[in-house]
């Protein structure tokens, strides 16, 4: 890499990270109305903008739909709920997908919620402003024990979901050798366009993680999942040391889950992912339950059967 490349990389990375705080500065200074000055684009006054508004709107809409990887900002706050469902829980019946809605109710499934602001970053939930994660139950708190809570703040929501998925795996909350691990999520926002973009990013990122780690798993949006209730949020940071050590114990216990044995896995996973996708989409006749029995090992190290507390 030469000097010019280094400068270019630095600039590129900084541009991705750079926050836009102007609106919040105006707001904090109680000068919000003045910020509207920016709508006088290229010196065209507001009435001029109105006159061309509908045409410009149409053009913008057309352009937006054709551009990938737009920075995700939204017009409204968004809430996300996310659960890690181990294969044995998600596929307890004959049909792995039908049954995730009816996962064994006696088993606590790690459940997290968090909020995302209009700039697409996670928001603090506690008064001390050092935690943006609502770990709704004990398994979720154990997983959060593997994560510095301050690392949950102002994060890209997809990155946070990936971190939680990774940590859930390390603590044995997925069954790497079972078919049917699921990360299910629900998104709540008034900005439907944002939801669409976020949904795609979440599914792609989590599916890619599973594929790279040779885990039979997918990310699915589940509209039947209850909406997050932040009114129940309780700050658990005072017990963090307990959850830290519990996470470490679980990670040590499940360290051998990840020995990546099974050289033929690549194709299996692709096959399963495809059938899962088809099933979840329009082709409801396809199911992977028959093949799942063929591939399941008789004994599963780090099985999530111990989730119940």
């Amino acid at each position, binding site marked *: 890499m030469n000097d010019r490349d280094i400068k270019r990389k630095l600039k590129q990375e900084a541009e991705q990270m750079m926050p836009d*705080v*102007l609106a*919040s*500065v105006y707001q904090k200074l109680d000068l919000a109305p*003045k910020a509207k000055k920016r709508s006088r684009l290229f010196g065209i006054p507001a009435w001029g903008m109105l006159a061309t508004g509908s045409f410009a709107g149409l053009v913008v809409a057309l352009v937006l739909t054709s551009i990938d990887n737009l920075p995700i900002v939204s017009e409204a706050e968004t809430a996300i709920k996310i659960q890690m469902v181990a294969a044995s829980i998600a596929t307890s019946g004959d049909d792995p997908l039908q049954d995730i809605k009816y996962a064994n109710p006696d088993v606590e499934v790690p459940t997290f919620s968090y909020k995302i602001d209009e700039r697409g970053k996670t928001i603090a939930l506690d008064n001390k402003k050092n935690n943006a994660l609502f770990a709704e139950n004990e398994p979720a708190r154990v997983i959060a024990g593997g994560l510095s809570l301050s690392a949950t703040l102002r994060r890209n929501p997809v990155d946070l979901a990936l971190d939680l998925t990774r940590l859930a795996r390390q603590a044995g909350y997925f069954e790497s050798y079972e078919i049917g691990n699921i990360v299910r999520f629900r998104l709540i926002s008034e900005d439907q366009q944002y939801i669409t973009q976020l949904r795609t990013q979440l599914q792609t990122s989590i599916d890619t993680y599973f594929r790279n780690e040779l885990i039979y798993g997918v990310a699915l949006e589940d509209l039947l999942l209850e909406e997050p209730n932040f009114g129940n949020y309780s700050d658990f940071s005072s*017990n*963090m*040391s307990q959850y830290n050590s519990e996470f470490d114990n679980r990670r040590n216990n499940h360290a051998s889950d990840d020995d990546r044995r099974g050289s033929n896995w690549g194709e299996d996973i692709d096959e399963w992912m495809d059938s899962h996708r088809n099933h979840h989409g329009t082709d409801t006749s396809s199911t992977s339950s028959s093949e799942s029995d063929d591939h399941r090992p008789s004994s599963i190290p780090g099985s999530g059967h111990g989730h119940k507390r």
Partner: protein
Amino acid sequence: MKSRTETALVKLQQGDQDGLTDLYEVTSRAVFAFTLSVIADYQLAEDIMQETYIRVYQSIDSYRKGTNGLSWILTIAKNIALTMLERRQREERIDFDAQHERAGATVEVPNFENPTIDLAKKILPEDEQQILFLYAIGEYKHREIADLLGLPLGTVTWKYQIAIKKMREHLKKGGQNDE
């Protein structure tokens, strides 16, 4: 001739609130580049930038016309960054659990998004980071950086060369290791 920064500051001083938007457009890149060199925690950058512009607005009367406006803003940004870092360290000292949390009982969540900035922060001292970031991210010339930081031009050029050389060598070494 007045710089765009000074024009915006004077506008603000005269009570024209639109000066704040002008000022932000002209200086935010530099403030961000500078802030990056002072803090280790990127998440604080947003708070520091916000607080900096609020403070600039509130203390606009203390800006002296004819002086380097950006240099004045960067000084404010640096003071705010140091105060915030100090406050955060104090909170961590008080909060034993948080201390424990960071003491190694956690797994580190790697940041794959900013490898080049991360590398600069890891291997360069603060003054070299400042010069490199203001040059590469803020797009300032060496002479302007010398004015901003109150350093001789020769020192800025020399430190920039050292910084970029260190980066080059580390990246080369990293590339070889990858192979």
